[in-house]
């Protein structure tokens, strides 16, 4: 009877993986933005973060002004903001709590302890001197979770849905990380290729843990096209969109055949299309058509994949899946 997985558990494990991956990536985005904003641009940079997550309405409803501290507080510690790191990890912990019969005790304890720790951090601790340490702690905790999961989680259906969640989320987050740079470049296209610009693209690579790998491929130069191409297409880079999409497709095919699951065909087709696009378009074509538009398209397709998984495997009615993907956006 080990082969049976409750639909609700599949949903929870998919989202557990997504939330932890999301928290890690948000820490990466905020960390890299910290680096950017210290160069010269000030408030403008932080506004782009708020735009990126479509959180303007909620952010400004609190009468807040865009400062480094207010944005960081909103995205790191604000428990009332559902897109903050602390909220994201709270959702992860809640899913883990539901999943305790399924996941290893070590997975649960680590998330429980880390969330309890995070929820005690005060906003006065968001000082410039402490920030990179805090982001490092968050990234490390998320990676610890990933490692514990890899080393302890039983390899049945749940493991597949866990990995599906992780790769779908990671693909999505890499597009968002790239999009930030797009937002930053947009107002001042003249800066392209300047030393400041190059250092920012390097910072972006570092935030995706891709700097050294990129250097090995392109030792001589950092150009926006090459960096964007690397993050989108590189098959060996574990955070590239292409790699994540390919893994998602592979995992979906495997779980379907190994456990004789009938659903998920729409998602499989969507992933095939996405892989074909990523395999044929060049970065030059994408940049000339508009990077932002391309990233937006990928995000829409990933949402469609997630929606089909919800309907096929997690027991959502189509309307509910629609509402959920709207909320996830």
């Amino acid at each position, binding site marked *: *009877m080990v082969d*049976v*997985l*409750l*639909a*609700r*558990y*599949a949903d929870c494990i998919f989202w557990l993986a997504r939330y932890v991956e999301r928290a890690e990536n948000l820490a990466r985005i905020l960390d890299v933005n910290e680096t950017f904003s210290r160069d010269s641009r000030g408030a403008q940079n932080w506004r782009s973060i708020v735009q990126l997550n479509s959180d303007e309405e909620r952010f400004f409803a609190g009468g807040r002004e865009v400062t480094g501290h207010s944005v960081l507080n909103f995205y790191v510690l604000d428990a009332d903001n559902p897109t903050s790191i602390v909220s994201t990890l709270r959702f992860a912990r*809640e899913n883990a*709590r*539901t999943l*305790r*019969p399924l996941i290893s*005790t070590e997975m*649960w*304890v680590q998330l*429980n*302890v880390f969330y*309890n720790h995070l929820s005690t951090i005060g906003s006065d601790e968001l000082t410039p001197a402490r920030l990179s340490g805090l982001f490092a702690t968050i990234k490390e905790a998320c990676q610890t979770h990933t490692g514990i999961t890899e080393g302890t989680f039983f390899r049945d*259906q749940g493991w597949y*849905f866990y990995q599906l969640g992780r790769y779908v989320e990671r693909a999505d987050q890499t597009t968002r990380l790239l999009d930030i740079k797009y937002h930053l470049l947009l107002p001042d296209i003249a800066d392209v290729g300047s030393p400041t610009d190059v250092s920012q693209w390097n910072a972006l690579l570092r935030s995706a843990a891709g700097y050294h790998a990129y250097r090995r491929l392109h030792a001589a130069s950092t150009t926006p096209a090459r960096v964007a191409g690397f993050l989108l297409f590189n098959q060996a880079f574990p955070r590239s969109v292409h790699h994540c999409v390919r893994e998602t497709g592979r995992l979906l095919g495997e779980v379907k055949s190994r*456990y*004789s*699951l*009938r*659903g998920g065909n729409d998602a499989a087709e969507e992933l095939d299309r996405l892989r074909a696009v990523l395999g044929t378009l060049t970065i030059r074509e994408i940049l000339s058509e508009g990077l932002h538009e391309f990233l937006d398209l990928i995000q829409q397709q990933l949402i469609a994949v997630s929606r089909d998984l919800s309907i096929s*495997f*997690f*027991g959502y009615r189509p309307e509910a899946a629609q509402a959920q993907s709207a909320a996830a956006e």
Partner: protein
Amino acid sequence: MDRSILDGYDPRGFFCEMLTSPASAGVRERLARLSIAALKERAAAANAELYNLGITFTVYSDAKTIDRILPFDVLPRVLSAAEWRQLESGIVQRITAINLLLDDIYHDQRVLADGVVPRDLILGNPNYRPEMCGLDVPHKAYVNICGTDIVRDEKGAFFVLEDNARTPSGVSYVVENRHMMLRAFPDLLDDIGLRGIDNYGARLVAALQEMAPPGIGDPQIVLLSPGTYNSAYFEHVFLAREMGVPLVEGPDLVVEDERVSMRTTGGLARVDVIYRRINDDFLDPEAFNRDSMLGVRGLMRAYRAGNVALANAIGTGVADDKAVYAYMPRLIRYYLGEDAILQNVPTNICREPEALRYTLDHLAELVVKPVGEAGGYGITVGPTATRAELADCRKKLLADPANYISQPCVNLSVAPTLVDGGIEPRHVDLRPFAVTGSSTWVLPGGLTRVALRRGSFVVNSSQGGGSKDTWVLG
């Protein structure tokens, strides 16, 4: 002569579980090697670990959820092999009688015809379920999981205080407390002859398999929980893990053609046995409480059709009613032809005129309890009640005597307990857990609850209670 941490300890005239038991000599010897400071350090580490492990129950206040641990006292409560033999055989005897009673009242009702128990006490009981009449339960095992509350008086005699025959909780703490002791006090446990408790999950699975509808080779068992917001959710998780079965909630299950299935990634999958941690009332909105969001529509029909087993069966609450409790010694004699191995606390059944008169005459010495309530509600404790409370109690007794029983106050035994000031006596009770399929098995030991407030007799977790590991030695 070495000093021991128990040197200044004084049980103040109560029966002490540690000093009196010959079985505890080895434990006392090992404890003597520890200092209070070391004990406190390990206790703090153990309680922090329980919190991190999430071995908690949930308290709700101001729309916030707070996870609390059941405070854990590191000084074990010890039972000798002889003491345990008496408890074990007494519990098996009692559960056997309870199951025979349930089978009888839902079939021939001989016990009512013979006048052993008043007819309206059973048939008029809110926990009596006419839906169960004529339904055959495998092995006549209605109560598959039972937690019997037992106390000891100042002479060390055991008394049953309550039979929890519906959905008793606490077994997860028994096992987790033991794991905690194994980690924190390996030196206490070395070669001491402690009986293991690790096989509870396996025993439970075996018993539930025996309950499966006939002809099913490898029955699918599930544990049905009200969900993560239930204060006992940790225990549900624990049990599902120990049994290796899915932990489902009402919406995960569906009944079609009087068969129960669960919703899985691959569609519907058959369910054969449900260990339900939801009360009768909420189990099936079609049969019972219509507003229940926790249950499964049509479950009762599937159950009556014999397509699914429920543990415990529906309608067991009539057997652990406080008034029916009072008849247990007579019921044991009636069904088994034996005297009760474990005594009841002497109980005055106020529906009987003589018992009512006695109760009214001795109100200030007695504990008066309403029969239908659980969790300590509506109880008047004579020795500590005000004059107005006693008058109020008298009025209620006279208005509806059948709704009450009275009992003498039992001077609960104590066990040495680590508190801020050092080691002091605190009152304890004991809830052993028994599992019944084709036969009954009792987990050695059980949950020892301890009233952490000085002088208090109240061991409930909601009112300052904690727990101890319970050791059956030899």
